[in-house]
């Protein structure tokens, strides 16, 4: 019999309901798996065994008492560490928030707990979700369970790796430019970015507020549907959340794809796409034809400008959102005494030199406190994006960069509108290549940004999109298929993904266990 931690949430849920196992047994299996494998993978920043077992015991008690249980009762779930869990350290993988304990739960955390899910820990990410490899985490990188020398992707790298390594069945991530779908693709699991506004962002530490969206990562589309039902819904605490009914995504999974029009973009398959990725995506398209779908050639003429627009808009919003880290209200603060002493020394030296201009330009104590705190609290990629955004929003450049990018954003959205008049779903690659090696792109920001070219469009246009496994490279690395749909058509996406997973078994494959010989990622 397969270990409990290898089952999907849907399978576990059935066993728990039939009382074939207890929630405590399920959680113990997951905690054992984490203890055995996470030293090598580094998916978690924090594991909460005591809290998890207490939650599981509470579920078991309620079940024994015959109480009505939530849809995720007893199912272990991992939370990306940019989602607030009240009273428990929420770091965003940044030194800035290394000791931050939020005074409230994120709405999705409240919903998960109300649904009976068992939170087992917080997963690693690129610092403040800025990055595509989980290497910008201030604490440690995460390794791809399929090949420990490679990235799991990012920014939800820990969230994807812990599901791929079967440490937990369900994981919650966030996606600003591909941060759920790209790691899902590189780790061989399923991940969905919902429509902008479908899931409340309350309690998600803000990166780029017009693009951020929370979503599920799991072994299958069915499990994504199950988790999304709990995550989605209107929240008065997020004024951008959509006040629209949440369908039962699980009950909409079944159904024929006959007549489903799937758009594909020839431009996706030209220069820059790894041939093995191209082949796997083409095979998936043929499989869809076999399921009765109709393939339609479409164009997204402005898609090639999406990365440029995205990397102006996202850093601009980030530079504004991250202004809150000032060393005053919460988070890291530089050593104030040392800072003040140094500033005084600088002032004396300038006075002695009679340099009136430099004296005039010298930071005030408060400004120096902000600058030193932020210099020490943020890592290189976060600083780069704050600088890029501040530059793009500054006087003289605002029109040429920020405003221009917003206009291109509308053209990108209009491309999608035109495409979705002809097709129901757009299919293509998630990433230009399988997982790259750790260290390969970290010193070349532009190369890292260009890896996002297929995913950022859905964020700019606010559309739902998912990634499911569609093949493996010769080296045994997973390859993802990207499906995008019109706003609020998550059900259609999940149905299409589920249909493929009924006739293929790629989502069932799991990486070989690294075993006890692996080296500790935190070493």
């Amino acid at each position, binding site marked *: 019999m397969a270990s409990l931690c290898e089952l999907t949430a849907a399978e576990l849920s059935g066993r728990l309901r039939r009382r074939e196992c207890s929630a405590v047994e399920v959680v113990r299996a997951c905690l054992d798996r984490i203890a055995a494998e996470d030293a090598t993978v580094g998916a978690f920043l924090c594991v909460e065994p005591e809290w998890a077992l207490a939650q599981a015991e509470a579920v078991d008690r309620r079940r024994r008492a015959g109480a009505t249980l939530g849809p995720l009762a007893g199912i272990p779930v991992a939370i990306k560490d940019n989602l607030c869990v009240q009273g428990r350290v929420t770091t965003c993988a940044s030194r800035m928030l290394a000791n931050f304990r939020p005074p409230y739960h994120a709405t999705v955390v409240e919903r998960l707990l109300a649904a009976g899910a068992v939170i087992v820990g917080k997963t690693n990410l690129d610092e403040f979700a800025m990055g595509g490899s989980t290497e910008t985490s201030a604490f440690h990188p995460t390794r791809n369970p399929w090949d420990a020398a490679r990235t799991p992707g990012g920014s939800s790298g820990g969230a994807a790796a812990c599901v791929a390594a079967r440490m937990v069945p369900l994981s919650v991530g966030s996606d600003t430019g591909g941060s759920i779908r790209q790691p899902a693709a590189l780790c061989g699991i399923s991940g969905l970015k919902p429509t902008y506004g479908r899931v409340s962002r309350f309690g998600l530490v803000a990166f780029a507020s017009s693009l951020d969206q929370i979503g599920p990562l799991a072994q299958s589309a069915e499990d994504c549907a199950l988790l999304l039902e709990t995550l989605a819904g209107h929240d008065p605490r997020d004024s951008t959340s959509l006040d629209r009914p949440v369908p039962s995504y699980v009950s909409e999974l079944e159904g024929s794809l006959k007549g489903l029009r799937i758009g594909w973009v020839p431009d996706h398959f030209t220069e820059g796409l790894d041939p093995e990725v191209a082949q796997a995506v083409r095979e998936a398209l043929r499989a869809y034809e076999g399921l009765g779908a109709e393939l339609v050639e479409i164009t997204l003429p402005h898609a090639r400008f999406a990365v440029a627009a995205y990397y102006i808009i996202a850093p601009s919003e980030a530079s504004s959102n991250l202004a809150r880290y000032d060393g005053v*209200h919460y988070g890291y603060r530089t050593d104030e005494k040392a800072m*003040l002493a140094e500033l005084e020394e600088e002032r004396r030296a300038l006075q002695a030199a009679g340099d009136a201009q430099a004296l005039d330009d010298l930071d005030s104590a408060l400004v120096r*406190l*902000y600058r030193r705190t*932020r210099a020490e609290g943020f890592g290189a990629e976060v600083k780069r994006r704050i600088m890029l955004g*501040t530059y793009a929003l500054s006087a003289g450049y605002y029109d040429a960069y920020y405003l221009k990018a917003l*206009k291109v954003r509308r053209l990108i959205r209009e491309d999608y509108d035109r495409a979705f008049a002809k097709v129901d779903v757009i299919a293509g690659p998630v990433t230009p290549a399988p997982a790259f090696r750790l260290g390969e792109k970290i010193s070349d920001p*532009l190369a890292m940004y260009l890896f996002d070219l297929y995913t950022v469009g859905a964020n700019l246009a606010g559309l739902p999109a998912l990634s499911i496994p569609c093949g493996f490279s010769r080296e045994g690395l997973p390859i993802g298929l990207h499906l995008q749909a019109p706003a609020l058509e998550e059900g259609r996406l999940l149905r299409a993904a589920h249909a493929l997973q009924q006739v293929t078994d790629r989502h069932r494959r799991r990486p070989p266990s690294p075993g006890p010989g692996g080296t500790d990622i935190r070493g």
Partner: protein
Amino acid sequence: MAVSEHEIRKVALLARLELTPEETRLMASQLSRVLEYMELLGGVDTEGVEPLAHAVEVTNVFREDRVVPGLDRESALANAPHRDEECYRVPAVLGEA
């Protein structure tokens, strides 16, 4: 478009970041490369196109003007790196030498 180290220093002040001379050099070269790529956008005809700041163009989401409990002072101050009984503490702003 090349960004000079002088501009980087100016933007760093606006962004309330402190950069070492080495970081300033690296930032100038990396941002120059990224901004050079952004020049791609210059080739897009956006004449008459309205900017799109937000994918969901909803405006004026109102709620009832009802008094609800907010964060109490102790919770709000609990994470402060430097505080007293009722306030956040910062270096003196007025009366500097």
